[in-house]
């Protein structure tokens, strides 16, 4: 039981299914932690989507409504940040593939890499904001800059949560505490991270096309 190999096996296979006498389909609450976690995650993603949908609708209305919208110069580091975030997603998946092969060393390595890239993205965003500030573009300078700050900050706020989850899994992994139950944490974190990645791409399109 304390063999890393068998632990990996458990992580890959997931927790045991609930006993047959509890029935499936109609389902019993007690075996459903993993499924409930996924449901909770997708419900959370729906809520986040609604927040950004509301911002987008405000963006579109505010932009179309008056003639004071001036396109904002984007700091070039945004493109670097985008690449960092995309790569972090790829690395994260590399890590999950390693886990599927049962290679926990590789899993830890790649997962740590993805976490570091996540932190790097946040630092990059900080730099982007500082550059904008240095260029005299503040949150109230123009509606386009207002929306830029609001949307990127909201995204960064979500990303803080994502990085916290990545760090949590990473610490558990390095301390060899990744029991079967943690497999859900790995999957949930990864899906959330990919969502943030997609959200960022959407925001970039929004800024570069309409911002």
């Amino acid at each position, binding site marked *: 039981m304390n063999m890393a190999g068998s632990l990996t096996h458990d992580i890959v296979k997931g927790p045991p299914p609930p006993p047959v006498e509890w029935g499936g389909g109609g389902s019993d609450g007690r075996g*459903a932690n993993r499924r409930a976690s996924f449901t909770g995650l997708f419900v959370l993603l729906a809520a986040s989507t609604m927040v950004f949908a509301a911002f987008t609708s405000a963006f579109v209305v505010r932009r179309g409504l008056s003639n004071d919208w001036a396109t904002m110069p984007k700091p070039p580091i945004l493109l670097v940040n985008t690449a960092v975030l995309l790569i972090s997603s790829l690395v994260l998946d590399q890590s999950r593939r390693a886990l599927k092969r049962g290679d926990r060393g590789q899993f830890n390595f790649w997962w740590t890499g993805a976490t570091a890239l996540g932190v790097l993205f946040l630092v990059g965003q900080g730099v982007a904001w500082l550059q904008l500030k240095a260029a005299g573009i503040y949150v109230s300078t123009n509606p386009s800059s207002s929306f830029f700050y609001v949307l990127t900050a909201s995204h960064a706020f979500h990303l803080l949560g994502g990085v916290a989850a990545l760090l949590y899994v990473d610490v558990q992994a390095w301390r060899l505490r990744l029991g079967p139950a943690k497999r859900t944490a790995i999957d949930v974190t990864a899906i959330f991270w990919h969502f943030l990645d997609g959200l960022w791409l959407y925001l970039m399109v929004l800024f570069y096309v309409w911002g």
Partner: protein
Amino acid sequence: MSSPIAQHAHAAPQGFIRRYVFSKDHKVIGIQYYMLGLFSVFLGMSLSLLMRYHMVNPNVSVKWFAWLWPTAASGGVMTPELYLSLMTMHGTIMVFFVLTTVPQSGFGNYFLPIQIGAEDMAFPTLNMLSFWTTLLSLIVMVAAFFVQGGAPLSGWTGYPPLSGLGRITGPGEGMGQTLWILSIAIFCGASLMGAINFIATTVDLRCKGLTLMRMPLTCWTWLVTAILGLLGFAVLLAAGVLLLLDRLAATSFFLPAGLFVSDQIITNHQGGSPLLWQHLFWFFGHPEVYIAILPGMGVTSQLLSTFSRKPIFGYKAMVYAILSIGFLGFLVWGHHMFMSGMNPYSAMAFSVLTMCIGVPSAIKTFNWIGTLWNGKIHFDTAMMFALGFVSLFVTGGVSGIFLGQPALDLYFHDTYFVVGHFHMIMGVAAIFGMFAGTFYWFPKVTGKFMNETLGKIHFYCTFIGVYAIFTPMHYLGIAGNPRRYSAFTDVEYLGKLIPVHQFMTYAAYFTAAAQIIFVINLFWSVRKGKPAPINPWNATTLEWTVPSPPPFDNFAGVHPVVNHGPYEYSVPGESQDFIMQNDPAQVHSEG
């Protein structure tokens, strides 16, 4: 290692703090929410009494007003601004901390897991966090009374520019309004956490045999309410962030150029749109109405069936009505904005969609009446409140049909007609749902009955009282009495209506006094109530199969298996007139 999870009872955590304060037990959290709502409802009611007093005695000096508000009521006479701040806080506290909190987070937290046969909510820690965040939000909101300038003036809808410009627009518009927006944003976060928990719990934690179409209607309403809350509060959160930035960071999301306020031209804003706020707010605000009323509908359905010993009439129709009310609720926000100068074609579209909501609402009402028809009705206090709910829902709903038409709404919108309408349907009907739930579930929570005599007195006083307060408002509205004014005594054409206002004020005092009976009954019955058996109402759902109060993990390690729908009353050929949901399957054929 992976020994299959043994069926064993979970012990409750020891120690007062873990058990009753920072508890992760959904039952304790449900009671905490209920108590938070009980505090809020009395706070909100006190504010309304102050308003009613001021409206009919605008020039009478009251000593303790001067003591409470040395500047806003210096000399003991309320300023109109103080009246507006009372109005704002009354609406906000009632809508968010009573109507949103008690029926869903209070009753839902306590009874959803038990009714679906689960040990707890899906994410107990998140559940605890959600309650404490709600409490924080309430504290921030109440703090607005105590900061310089006092509470905000801009109503529970917080319309900019009034809410976006700061101190210059009024005494409460400085720190008070900022705290208001902050509190609402925090509340949104708490509600989102709650919604995630409710949805995941309902979807994934149902016990064996409890298919969706065997869920009690209460669970259906909690589920749909959670979905509405999830989508609505997310949008309100976004809008709140933008409004806060308009105030604190001089952005112009909602603030246009050329504003002239308090003899000053506002120069640091331009291009924003106050209408944008209205759209975002009401996209949340209309579903909010259903967040308040749907759980009451669930409780009412449950009680009408139980106390008339008949299956609910048209269970499936009820479920689809709940779902379509939830869906349509997101398409009608524009009917709050007919006065905003919107395109008449848009108004027409919103109007038609609004009328469409009348269809599922009528389905529910007819099904309730169909449930009662030829039933062996037991007139317990819980049932009386459920019947009262139906009455108020119909009364409040009918006036909604008037307001849903742009041509009529243009006249009615800023009159007392609207005040009467929304208090009937959103305020009082939902509160009757809460009273019904309280009397119905009290024996389960405490193992005691509430006092029936006090309950009946409370019911009749409240029922007559609320009709006496809110029915005249409709006539006032038709007569052209504007709302949101702090006094009418100096307006000549309203002179003849003052006696009506006086009547309403006395009715409000009377109704408020009657609520003391309820509080006495509630707390007295906890200690001294008549002991109740496990299933005092001969109801069928799972909460009536466990001891009162239920053990920490609800079913003491047993896994319930459900074989029946929730409303199998008076099944022909059965010895009892009800079949518990977890009775063995063979006793009857599925209806």
